[in-house]
């Protein structure tokens, strides 16, 4: 204490202020405080607004994809058009292509209009444009299924064309059809009247969820089912590779790894891989799995391998966290009764860490399920996923799409009817992601342990 402390230095004449009266400066400071606080609230409000707009857009624009407009039509399957020789032989009938069924639909439409007393200037070939291009194929499949139908009048539920469907959903208006080559106002007049009489009706469309992708010109019959299977097989690959490898790697790093350069090197690699852009993993997949190892292009197996490498860091990081949360006392107890280090880890630590590991894995899987970019590079887009895989091996190896890749594919197509499909696909994808995250949360709630 060498300082001399001038005690008389207290501020002279500083008036004692009452704390009950807010002075001008405090008021100003409090205003600044309120402003600052308002910025925070505004930031959160903006974020919330974005979220609400995003979700609302998805719901509003995606839900229509789950319904589709159908026309109920009685079609007479005339024998002399489909089986002129009356053989009843399936091979013989199969020779009539879908083209041969079109006139039948035309006639059916004409008679429906007569029955309903609807007048129209349109000739039968133009009337068919109200229906999906898939309609003749539906008829043909039914006939090939049961040749005895020939000669009878059968009631079919046929998809209307995407423009007609769009008209009922409000996507297509009379004005926007003015320059359309396929559908014009006269068609809409007919559709209006048929809707009134109940022959045209919008209803739930399961085919969107279970069906396959369709060609560019038939958005009304495109579905996400096949690419869902593609995603499923990819997720199987990811699960069965990343869980064991991730757990093994984490156990090594957390329980056994000596403190040395090599361990550090592994750690640095893992933390950097976690931040490598996903598209780079796509390049890796293309170069190594496809160009060097000659694995089949567009195959869910390759997609799964790429996504595995991408999710591994996430799973390793979360697994290590849950291994770390098992208190050392458990390890000491097991080692104390003479268990080996390996037995301690596999008998005690790992089971206790399992809920945390599973939670992390599910979250990693959810991330992988929504990932698109790397799939673009290994050829899972531009491919029309039109057939279900024939079996398990084909499921892994045959070209397929995946849900997010399918959504991207639809978003790129020119027909706006496909945008509705894309939004609908997003709803399906988000339902999966939400259920996975919910499962993870439930797991955490159910098994969370505080030491």
């Amino acid at each position, binding site marked *: 204490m060498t300082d*001399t*402390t001038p*005690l008389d230095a*207290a501020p002279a004449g500083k008036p004692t*202020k009452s*704390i*009950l009266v*807010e002075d001008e400066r405090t008021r100003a400071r*409090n205003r600044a405080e309120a402003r600052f606080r308002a910025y925070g609230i505004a930031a959160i409000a903006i974020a919330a607004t974005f979220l609400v707009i995003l979700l609302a857009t998805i719901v509003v624009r995606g839900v229509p994809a789950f319904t589709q407009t159908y026309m109920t039509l009685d079609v007479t399957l005339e024998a002399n058009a489909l089986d002129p020789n009356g053989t009843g032989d399936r091979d013989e009938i199969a020779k009539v292509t879908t083209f041969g069924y079109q006139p039948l639909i035309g006639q059916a439409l004409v008679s429906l209009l007569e029955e309903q007393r609807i007048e129209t200037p349109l000739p039968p070939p133009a009337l068919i444009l109200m229906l999906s291009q898939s309609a003749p194929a539906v008829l043909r499949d039914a006939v090939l299924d049961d040749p005895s139908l020939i000669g009878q009048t059968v009631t079919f539920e046929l998809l209307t064309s995407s423009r007609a469907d769009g008209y009922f959903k409000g996507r297509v208006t009379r004005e926007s059809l003015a320059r359309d080559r396929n559908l014009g106002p006269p068609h809409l007049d007919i559709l209006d009247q048929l809707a009134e009489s109940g022959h045209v009706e919008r209803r739930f469309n399961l085919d969107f969820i279970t069906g396959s992708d369709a060609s560019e010109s038939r958005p009304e019959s495109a579905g996400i089912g096949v690419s869902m299977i593609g995603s499923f097989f990819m997720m199987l690959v990811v699960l069965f590779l990343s869980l064991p490898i991730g757990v093994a790697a984490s156990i090594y790093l957390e329980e056994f790894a000596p403190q040395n350069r090599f361990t550090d090197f592994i750690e640095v690699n893992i933390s950097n891989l976690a931040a490598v852009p996903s598209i780079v993993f796509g390049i890796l997949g293309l170069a190594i799995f496809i160009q060097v190892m000659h694995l089949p292009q567009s195959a869910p197996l390759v997609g799964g391998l790429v996504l595995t490498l991408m999710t591994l860091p996430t799973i390793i990081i979360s697994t290590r966290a849950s291994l770390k949360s098992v208190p050392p006392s458990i390890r000491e107890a097991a080692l104390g009764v003479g268990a080996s280090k390996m037995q301690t880890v596999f008998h005690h630590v790992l089971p206790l860490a399992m809920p945390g590991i599973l939670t992390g894995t599910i979250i990693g899987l959810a991330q992988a399920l929504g990932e698109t970019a790397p799939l673009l590079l290994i050829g899972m887009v531009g491919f029309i996923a039109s057939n279900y895989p024939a079996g398990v091996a084909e499921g892994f190896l045959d070209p397929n799409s995946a849900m997010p890749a399918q959504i991207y594919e639809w978003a790129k197509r020119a027909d706006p009817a496909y945008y509705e499909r894309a939004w609908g696909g997003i709803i399906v994808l988000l339902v999966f992601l939400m259920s996975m995250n919910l499962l993870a949360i439930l797991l955490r709630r159910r098994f969370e342990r505080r030491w």
Partner: protein
Amino acid sequence: MDDLRLIERAVDMNETKISANGVQVYYGDNHAIKDVNVEIADKTVTAFIGPSGCGKSTFLRCLNRMNDTISVARVEGDIRIDGEDIYDKRVDPVQLRAKVGMVFQKPNPFPKSIYDNVAYGPKIHGLARNKAELDEIVERALRRAALWNEAKDRLQEPGTGLSGGQQQRLCIARAVATEPEVLLMDEPCSALDPIATAQVEELIDELRQSYSVVIVTHSMQQAARVSQMTAFFHLGNLVEYDETGTIFTNPSDPRTESYISGRIG
């Protein structure tokens, strides 16, 4: 007890600075302070002693409404400074805290230069009209905290670079710079070595000339060394409040006696 330097100090009866009546504090369901009445005099060092968890720090934090920052804490009763209720709706805690400064258990200098640490309070309260005045305030505060000689050549260096004792004196200088009327100290020496402790204690004794100082300490020796008045807290109750000499030599409550003689605590 023999080593206690119980110097006879003149406890001139100054006017009352703070008066607390029927103060109750709840942390959620926990009743932390039970019906405390105390009068704290101006220009006096008042020590709060007691075993850990007895509520002495909690009560101290009521005096400048630092408990407001803890959402589960609830304060009832009546605390007045210069006759004004500090829990009155019209009171802005910001203004109150400018009047009732606080020094904490662990030295907590801001990650700024020594100068900026001390100038922080005067700046936010607008005490200086210009740079020269601010320089003057900073110098005065550092002198008063007995840090000027050590710090005057390194005012622009970070405050975190000082030693523990210097950091705590910097925190005291920081509190003094805002020219408070009451200085609350929450175990200011518990993180310091004996030499730094001695320096801070000497400083406290000098600060008494200008302020009412309230110090919480777990060390009875420290209370005996620096304070004129001592309050003994136990399990949330104010057991005994008297002149320091009386508390340490002739306590009236058996609990105080047990604590002083080391049987509880």
